[in-house]
């Protein structure tokens, strides 16, 4: 589904990713762990197409098409969902209006008719319930006044509604209390653990992986993947730290 080959990327002319290789197949859940500054968030933003994240070498294909040639909104329409470490507040635009616009513009991209208001509300209600989020919150402006945990749950509601093929979730577990962590973990499983979908979890900690069991764990350091293993690698990291693994 996602094939990253020798990816090099710079931010403000500073090389961050230095030859990253990663293949993710449908049905798989991958976790990328690594110390601060390893390039984890840069990987997410580069794949999402954030302005300022410049690819200097290598390639990334998504379902066979050149991901890097697409604009950010086209990547989303192609089925890529980027979960933000710091979801952005957008005053004055309600979650429901935002999500309906987003879903219908993705549908338009695939020549599908827009969902009616009633169909959309039904879908939103269902996904909000999955994440135990009050519909009233979705009437409020996007992320404005939401706590850290509410923002992350709102992201998962967005993911449920937009129904992507591949979700890249950047530190979805940061800022979550124990209950919210479990709710988000279960949300990720129920939305994304399907044979035709895949997930790339970017995280610092093992704790999210207790809920969302990865098939593969990668260690990212200095812009490259330096080790790959199964779920046991995350436990080893928890025990010995990144220094132990990198050594």
């Amino acid at each position, binding site marked *: 589904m996602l094939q990253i080959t020798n990816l090099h990327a710079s931010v403000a002319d500073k090389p961050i990713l230095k030859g990253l290789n990663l293949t993710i197949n449908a049905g798989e859940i991958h976790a990328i762990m690594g110390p601060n500054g390893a390039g984890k968030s840069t990987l997410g933003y580069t794949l*999402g*197409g*954030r*302005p300022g994240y410049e690819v200097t070498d290598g390639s990334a294909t998504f379902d066979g098409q050149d991901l890097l040639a697409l*604009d*950010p*909104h086209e*990547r*989303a*329409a192609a089925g890529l969902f*980027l979960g*933000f470490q710091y*979801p*952005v*507040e*957008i*005053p*004055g*635009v309600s979650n429901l*209006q*935002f*999500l309906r*616009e*987003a*879903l219908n*513009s*993705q549908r338009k*991209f695939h020549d599908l008719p827009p969902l009616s208001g009633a169909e959309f509300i039904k879908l939103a209600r269902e996904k909000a319930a999955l994440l135990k989020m009050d519909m009233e919150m979705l009437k409020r*402006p*996007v992320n404005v006044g939401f706590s850290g945990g509410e923002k992350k749950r709102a992201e998962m509601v*967005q993911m449920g509604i*937009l129904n992507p093929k591949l979700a890249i979730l950047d530190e979805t577990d940061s800022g979550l209390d124990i209950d919210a962590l479990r709710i988000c973990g279960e949300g990720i499983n129920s939305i994304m653990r399907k044979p035709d979908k895949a997930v790339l979890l970017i995280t610092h900690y093992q704790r999210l992986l207790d809920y969302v069991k990865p098939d593969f764990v990668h260690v990212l350091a200095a812009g490259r993947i330096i080790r790959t293993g199964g779920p046991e690698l995350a436990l080893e990291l928890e025990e010995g730290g990144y220094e132990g693994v990198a050594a």
Partner: protein
Amino acid sequence: MTALPTRKAEDWRYADLAALEKLWPLPDAEAVTVAPGDNFARAIINKGGVLRLSLTLEAGARGAVHVLNTADTYARIEIEVTLKEGADFTLGGVQLASGEQTAEIVTTVRHIEPNATSRQMIRSVAGGTSTASVLGKVYVAKGADGTDGSQSVRAMLLDRTAQANARPELEIYADDVKCAHGCAIGELDANGLFYLAARGIEPARAKALMLQAFIAEAFDGAGEEDNLTAAAQAALEALL
């Protein structure tokens, strides 16, 4: 005023004088007096030219004016308000300019008796090489104690070549007065735009959504809020 103003005149400093010359001499302002305790509401959509309104609010009268200012070349709205005891004035304004257009809203609010309130909120959007200006004067006469006046002026620049001016002016001769003013000029939040794009919303649509949100509060509570909002949205989409 009989002679065409020059750029030295403060109130015409940012005007498009070439366009103004074709409109000169300007007609007198429309004068409206609102009787004591009465209500007055007006929604104005200016699609070009100079529009002038002079409003006198007698004791306890309430006036609400909402304006949308857009232009092919030059659009100016001048509003003069005189408030008597306990009167209340609300102005909500939006102006949208692109290309080489010039749009401006010029207000003079005079609190001449005690305990009157005025609130002015203006949101401008300027793209291309356009200019959007707000010149707002609040005058509080001697003895007009208990005055509460506020001005909130914000502008969003879509291009580095566009220009926004905000000039609040306070002239206060009374002691017990509350007069607040704030102005801010900025650009659309790049993080917000990327966030919308990352969810699949096209760039032009993402900008329109954020701008709609930016201008919306100026029309909050307007009698013709829906009409004004629809007209502003259409103008916004044409502008992007």
